[in-house]
C-alpha cells in the first residue's frame, strides 16, 4: 500500500510537471509571436509597407504617386537605391508663416536621363509626404529639346499658358493647371540665376 501511495504521488507530480512545461512552452511561443508581431510592425512602419504606406492613387512623377513617403518614392522610382538628402529652402515659400522647417525634406535622384539629357530630380516632402517635385536639366544650347519638352507637357496636361509677368532672369515660363496640380516650366540662362 505504501509503495503504491508513493507511485501515485510520483505520477501526480509528473502530470503537474508536464502541465507546467506545457504552459511554459505556450508562454514562450506567445512571447515569440508577440515579439515577431512587434518587430514585423516596426519593420513595416520604418519602410512604409502595407498599411504604413502613405501614397495616394494620383500619379506624380514616373511610378510615384503624390503623398508617398521617401521610402516609397525610392522603391517606385529609384529601384530601392538611396535618394540623396539635400538642403531645402522651400519653407521660405510660406513666409512669413512659422513652421518647424525640419518637417520639410528634400531628396535628389541623379541617375536619370530624360529626353536624352542628364537630369536631376528633386523630390520635396512635408511630414515625409511627397507634395512637389522638380526636374532640372542643364543644356549647352537651346536646340529642339525645348519644343520636345513643351510638346510632351502639352500632350499630358493640355494647352500651355504663358506667364507674362515672369521673372527677368527667365527666358520663358509656362504653366498648366491639371486636376489637383500646378505644373510650371521655365528656361533660363545659367549665369543669370
Amino acid at each position, binding site marked *: 500500500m505504501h509503495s503504491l501511495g508513493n507511485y501515485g504521488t510520483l505520477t501526480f507530480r509528473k502530470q503537474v510537471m508536464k502541465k507546467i512545461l506545457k504552459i511554459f512552452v505556450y508562454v514562450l511561443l506567445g512571447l515569440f509571436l508577440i515579439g515577431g508581431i512587434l518587430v514585423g510592425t516596426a519593420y513595416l512602419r520604418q519602410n512604409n509597407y502595407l498599411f504604413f504606406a502613405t501614397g495616394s492613387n*494620383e500619379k*506624380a*512623377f514616373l511610378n510615384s504617386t*503624390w*503623398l508617398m513617403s521617401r521610402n516609397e518614392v525610392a522603391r517606385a522610382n529609384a529601384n530601392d537605391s538611396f535618394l540623396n538628402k539635400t538642403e531645402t529652402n522651400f519653407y521660405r515659400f*510660406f513666409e*512669413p*508663416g*512659422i*513652421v518647424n522647417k525640419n518637417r520639410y525634406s528634400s531628396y535628389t535622384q541623379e541617375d536619370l536621363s530624360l529626353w536624352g539629357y542628364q537630369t536631376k530630380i528633386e523630390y520635396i516632402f*512635408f511630414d515625409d*509626404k*511627397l*507634395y*512637389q*517635385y*522638380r*526636374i*532640372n*536639366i*542643364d*543644356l*549647352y*544650347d*537651346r536646340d529642339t*529639346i*525645348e519644343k520636345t*519638352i513643351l510638346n510632351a*507637357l502639352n500632350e499630358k496636361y493640355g494647352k500651355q499658358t504663358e506667364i507674362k509677368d515672369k521673372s527677368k532672369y527667365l*527666358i520663358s515660363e509656362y504653366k498648366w493647371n491639371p486636376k*489637383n*496640380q*500646378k*505644373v*510650371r*516650366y*521655365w*528656361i*533660363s*540662362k*545659367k*549665369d543669370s*540665376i
Partner: protein
Amino acid sequence: MESEKSKSKILDKQKRFHIGISAEYLPYYNKIKEIVETERKNYF
C-alpha cells in the same frame, strides 16, 4: 579619374541653359499653407 572629373566639371560649366519643370500637389500644398498659418497664429 581626377582628370575625368575636372573634364566633366569644365563641360558642366559650358552648359549655358537651364530648364526647370516643377509640379505641386495642390490639396496637400494648401494644407501645408494652412498648417503654417495656424502655427503663426498660435505663436503670437
